[in-house]
C-alpha cells in the first residue's frame, strides 16, 4: 500500500492569495494512499524542507507530492530533501499550483478547485512512480565556440585561460566579426581595430585555442559533456600551413572586380584575397565564384594560374577539397552574432536607388582608414565631400509591421551619436541632422556622450520620422520628414543619408539551433534558459550563449556575456563526470514492431535496432527486429513514446500509464 505525503506551499502570498491552501491540503488528504497532507508558508525554506524530511521518516512515506511552483524552480530542492530522508528522489512529484494556477487566476474558488485537481493528478501519478537511479557520464575536456567575433574570441580566451582546449569555428576567412569592420567605439571613441586585433592575435597565439576559419558546423550529435561535432572546413584552395600571408598572389590576380565583402561592396578586391591587413589567420582564400581559373570561362581564363605562379611557397592548390573534422566536446558556446537587415522592403528610403543612401555599417567603412576612401568621408556616388548629412534612426527597428523587427536594436542611438560627433569633429563645415523616435542611452557614460553630441557638437536632433527620401537630378537628396515637436513638415537637401538599420541574428543561427536542439524566439534570437537568472545558458544542457546571438548588445555587454558564458562552460569542463538524467526511454522488446518510427523522430540518435532471437507465445523461435535505447544519449524528450504505434516505447518517470493516470484524475 502506498503511503503518500502531500505538502501544499503558500509561497508567501504568491499562491495563498488566490488559492485556499488549507482547503487544498484538506481535500487532498482524502485521496487514496495519502497519509499526511499539510500546508506551510514556504516549502522551499529550510523549515519547509525539514517538514518533508520529518514526515518521510515519521510516516514511512513511499511517495511525496509537493503542490508549489513550477518543477523548473524547486523540483531539485525537494528531490534532494527526499533523498536526504532516505526516499528515492524520483518518488517526488510536483503539482504546479503557482505558474499554472494561482498566477493566472483571479477567482479564489476557481483557483482552489484547479489546485485540488492538479494535486489529484500528481497523486495519481506518484502512485505509479518507480525509484530511479541516475548514472554518470564522462565530460570531454574541450569546448567548441561557434562564431569568431568579439564574443567568440573573448569566450575562447577565457576558457583557454582556465586551461581547457577550445576550438573556434568561424564561417568567414578571418576571425574578428563585425567589430573588425567598425571604425571607432562608443562612448570612448577609441579605434575598434586597436582594441580588437590584440585579442585576435592572442587567440591565434594561444596554444590551447584552435581556429577553424572558413569553416562551419555541419553536424552535432550527443549531449552535454559528450558532443560529437563535425566541422566542415571549406576549401580555400590555399594550403593554410604553407601560406605566409605575403599578399603577392592578390597583386598577381587579374580578376580585380570582386565586390569587397569586408568593405560591404563599397570597393573591389581580387578573386584571391586576404580580407584585411590584420586578418587572423592571415591566409589567402580564393573566391571560386570569381576566380577565372576555377570558374572557367574562356580557354585563356582556364589556364590563368597567376596566383600559383606568384606564390613563393607553393601554397595554392586548385584541387583542394572540403575537409571534414570530427571532434568531441564537453561544452558548446554559440556566438553567431548579428547582421544588419536587408533594406529591400524600404523603398521610401531609396537605399536601392541612390548610392549616397548608406547603412550605418557602410558609413563605418567609409570613415575607416582601411576603408574604400582611406578614411576620408566621401560620397560613394561622386567622391565629393558631403556637407549635409541626415541620419535616420530606427530603420526596421521597433516596427509593428512585417517589414521590420518588433524589437529595439539597442546599439543604434549610441553609434549614431558617435557618427554625428565624429563627422562634426573632423568636418566642422558639415551639418548633421538626426531623426529619432526616442533617444535611448542607458549605460555607463552613455547619456553624457549623447549630450556632448547635441550640446558641444551642435548635431541637430529632430524628433520625428523621415517619410520619404528622393534622389534628385542635381545629385542632392530630398529628405522629407516631420518635426513632431514643432509640428512642421521639413524638406532637407541632403548630400548623404545614413540609415540606422535594425540588426537581426545571423542567418546561420536557425539551422544551427536545429542541430543543437536549442530554442529560439520568433526573431531567431537564441532563448536563454531563464530570462533573468540563467541568461547565458540555453535550455539545452551544455549549450551556452555568447553575444548578440541571444539579443541585441553593444560591445561591453557582449564581452561581459562572453566571459559569463565561458565561466559557465568552465564550470562544466572542470567536472570529470556529470550525473545523467534517469528519466530516459526504454523499449519493451516483446511489443516492439521494429518499424523505425521512434528512430526517425529521435533528435539525439539514441535509438538503434538489432535483430534478436525471441521465444514466441506459440513456442516457436523467431528473429525479430527490435529497438534499443542508449540511455547515455537519450535526453528523455519522449518523442519516441508518442511515435510508437504499439506503445512498446515508454519513458521512465513519465510512463504512458502515469500520463493516463494524470489525465484520468483531471477528468474525473
Amino acid at each position: 500500500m502506498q503511503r503518500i505525503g502531500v505538502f501544499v506551499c503558500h509561497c508567501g502570498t504568491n499562491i495563498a492569495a488566490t488559492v485556499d491552501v488549507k482547503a487544498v491540503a484538506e481535500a487532498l488528504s482524502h485521496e487514496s494512499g495519502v497519509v499526511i497532507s499539510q500546508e506551510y508558508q514556504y516549502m522551499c525554506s529550510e523549515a519547509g524542507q525539514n517538514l518533508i524530511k520529518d514526515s518521510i521518516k515519521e510516516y514511512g512515506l513511499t511517495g511525496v507530492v509537493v503542490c508549489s511552483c513550477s518543477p523548473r524552480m524547486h523540483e531539485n530542492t525537494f528531490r534532494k530533501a527526499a533523498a536526504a530522508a532516505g526516499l528515492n528522489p524520483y518518488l517526488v512529484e510536483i503539482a504546479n499550483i503557482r505558474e499554472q494556477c494561482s498566477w493566472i487566476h483571479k477567482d479564489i474558488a476557481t483557483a482552489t478547485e484547479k489546485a485540488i485537481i492538479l494535486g489529484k493528478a500528481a497523486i495519481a501519478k506518484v502512485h505509479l512512480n518507480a525509484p530511479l537511479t541516475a548514472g554518470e557520464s564522462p565530460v570531454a575536456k574541450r569546448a567548441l565556440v561557434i562564431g569568431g567575433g568579439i564574443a567568440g574570441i573573448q569566450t575562447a580566451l577565457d576558457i583557454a585561460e582556465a586551461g581547457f582546449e577550445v576550438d573556434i569555428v568561424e564561417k568567414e576567412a578571418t576571425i574578428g566579426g563585425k567589430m573588425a569592420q567598425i571604425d571607432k567605439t562608443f562612448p570612448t571613441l577609441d579605434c575598434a581595430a586597436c582594441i580588437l586585433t590584440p585579442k585576435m592575435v592572442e587567440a591565434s597565439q594561444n596554444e590551447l585555442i584552435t581556429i577553424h576559419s572558413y569553416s562551419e558546423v555541419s553536424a552535432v550529435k550527443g549531449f552535454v559533456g559528450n558532443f560529437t561535432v563535425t566541422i566542415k572546413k571549406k576549401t580555400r584552395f590555399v594550403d593554410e600551413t604553407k601560406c605566409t600571408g605575403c599578399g603577392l598572389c592578390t597583386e598577381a590576380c587579374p580578376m580585380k572586380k570582386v565586390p569587397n565583402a569586408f568593405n560591404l561592396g563599397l570597393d573591389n578586391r581580387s578573386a584571391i584575397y586576404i580580407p584585411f591587413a590584420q586578418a587572423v589567420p592571415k591566409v589567402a582564400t580564393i573566391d571560386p565564384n570569381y576566380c577565372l581559373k576555377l570558374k572557367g570561362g574562356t580557354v585563356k581564363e582556364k589556364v590563368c594560374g597567376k596566383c600559383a605562379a606568384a606564390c613563393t611557397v607553393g601554397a595554392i592548390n586548385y584541387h583542394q577539397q572540403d575537409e571534414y573534422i570530427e571532434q568531441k566536446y564537453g561544452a558548446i558556446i554559440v556566438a553567431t552574432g548579428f547582421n544588419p537587415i536587408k533594406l529591400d522592403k524600404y523603398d521610401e528610403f531609396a537605399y536601392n536607388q541612390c548610392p549616397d543612401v548608406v547603412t550605418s555599417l557602410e558609413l563605418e567603412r567609409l570613415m575607416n582608414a582601411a576603408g574604400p576612401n582611406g578614411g576620408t568621408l566621401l560620397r560613394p556616388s561622386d567622391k565629393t565631400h558631403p556637407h549635409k548629412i541626415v541620419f535616420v534612426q530606427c530603420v526596421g527597428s521597433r516596427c509593428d509591421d512585417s517589414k521590420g523587427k518588433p524589437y529595439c536594436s539597442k546599439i543604434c542611438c549610441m553609434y549614431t551619436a558617435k557618427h554625428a560627433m565624429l563627422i562634426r569633429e573632423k568636418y566642422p563645415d558639415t551639418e548633421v541632422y538626426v531623426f529619432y523616435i526616442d533617444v535611448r542611452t542607458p549605460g555607463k557614460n552613455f547619456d553624457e556622450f549623447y549630450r556632448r553630441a547635441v550640446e558641444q557638437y551642435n548635431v541637430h536632433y529632430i524628433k520625428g520620422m523621415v517619410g520619404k527620401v528622393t534622389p534628385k537630378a542635381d545629385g542632392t537628396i530630398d529628405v522629407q520628414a516631420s518635426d513632431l515637436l514643432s509640428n512642421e513638415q521639413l524638406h532637407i537637401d541632403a548630400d548623404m543619408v545614413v540609415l540606422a538599420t535594425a540588426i537581426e541574428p545571423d542567418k546561420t543561427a536557425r539551422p544551427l539551433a536545429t542541430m543543437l536542439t536549442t530554442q529560439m524566439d520568433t526573431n531567431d534570437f537564441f532563448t536563454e534558459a531563464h530570462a533573468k537568472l540563467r541568461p547565458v545558458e540555453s535550455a539545452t544542457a551544455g549549450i551556452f550563449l555568447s553575444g548578440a546571438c541571444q539579443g541585441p548588445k553593444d560591445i561591453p555587454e557582449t564581452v561581459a556575456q562572453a566571459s559569463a558564458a565561458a565561466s559557465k562552460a568552465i564550470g562544466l569542463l572542470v567536472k570529470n563526470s556529470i550525473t545523467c538524467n534517469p528519466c530516459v526511454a526504454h523499449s519493451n522488446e516483446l511489443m516492439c514492431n521494429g518499424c523505425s518510427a521512434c528512430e526517425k523522430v529521435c533528435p539525439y540518435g539514441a535509438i538503434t535496432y538489432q535483430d534478436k532471437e525471441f521465444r514466441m507465445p506459440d513456442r516457436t523461435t523467431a528473429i525479430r527486429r527490435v529497438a534499443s535505447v542508449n540511455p547515455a544519449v537519450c535526453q528523455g524528450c519522449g518523442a519516441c513514446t508518442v511515435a510508437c504505434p504499439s506503445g512498446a516505447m515508454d519513458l521512465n518517470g513519465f510512463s504512458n500509464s502515469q500520463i493516463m493516470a494524470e489525465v484520468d484524475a483531471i477528468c474525473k
Partner: protein
Amino acid sequence: MQEAIISKAKQLLADGTVNRVIGWKKGEFAYDITPAIFESAEEIDAEFVYDDFTSANVSKYLVKESKKEGKILAFLKPCDTYSLNQLTKEHRVNRDNIYVVGIPSDGKLDAEKIKAKGITGIIGVERNGDTLKINTIYGEETMPVSEAMSNKCLSCKSKKHVTYDELIGEDGEVIESDRFDMVEKLENMTSQERYDFWKNELSKCIRCNACRNVCPACTCENCVFDNPDSGIQNKAASDSFEENMFHIIRAFHVAGRCTDCGECSRVCPQNIPLHLLNRKFIKDINSLYGEYQAGEDTTSRAPLNDYTQDDCEASIVHERGVE
C-alpha cells in the same frame, strides 16, 4: 486473367523461383473468396480462384509468410502494392523473400450490393461491358456493373503498381479520384450533424475486430487494445457508442501510414464507412504538410514522423481558419 495467373504461378513454382504461392480460393459461397497458400501445381489447379469477387489484399499475410523459409509468390493488385511498400518501409516484411507479380484490376464487385437488389443464391457472375450477368440458383439476373462495384473500387486512386518483380498485363497510372468528396461533405456539416452521423455509424459496431485484423497497417506484435498496461485494453462497452474510442484511436495509430486500401470498410459486417476516418487524416496531412501517399515508396519520411522548418503548426493553422 485467372488462367494467366495460374500458369504464371505454376511456372514460378516449377522453376524454383518460389516455393509457395499466396492467392485465393473459394469460400462457402461463390462470392466469398478467401486468401490461401498453395504449395503445388495440383493444389493450384484444384482451388486457385481469381475473379470479380477477389478483393482481399494479401499483403498483410506476408508479414508472417515472408519470414518463413524460401520465397513466396504474391499476386498483388495495384492498391495492394501500396500496402506492401508501406510494410517494407516499416521493416514488417522481408521484401527479399517475396516475389511480387503485379496483376491489373478493373474493379471488384460487392456481393452485398447485388444481394441488396433482391438477387440471392449467386453462383457466378459474368461481366459484359456495363452489364453484369448474375447466375443464381433461381436463374439468370442482370444489373449495371457500376451498381455492383465495391465502394473502394469506385473511388480507386491508382492503377499503378508501386512495387513488383514482374507484371501481368500493362501497368496503369495514378488516377484522379473523388475519394475525398464524402470527407468534404462531413467537414461541411455542423458539429452536431457530424456527431450524429458518427454516432449512428459507430453505434453499429459489434467490436468484431475485423477491421483491425484485415488492416495492413495494423500489424503490431501486440495491439494496444490487447495490452493491459495501455489503459485502453478490451473491456465490455458500457454503452453502444463507446466503441467510437476504439475507432478513433485506431485511426490515429494508422495516421500517416494508412494507404487508403479500403479493406476496413470492405470487411465490416455492419457496413460502417470506417475508411472515412482514415481519409480525413490523409486529407488533412495533404493540406497541412503537402501531398503524401503512404506506401508510394519505401524510403520517404512520413510527414507525421518528420520535421522540417517549413512545417506548419496544425493547431495554429486551424485557429486562424487558414486552409
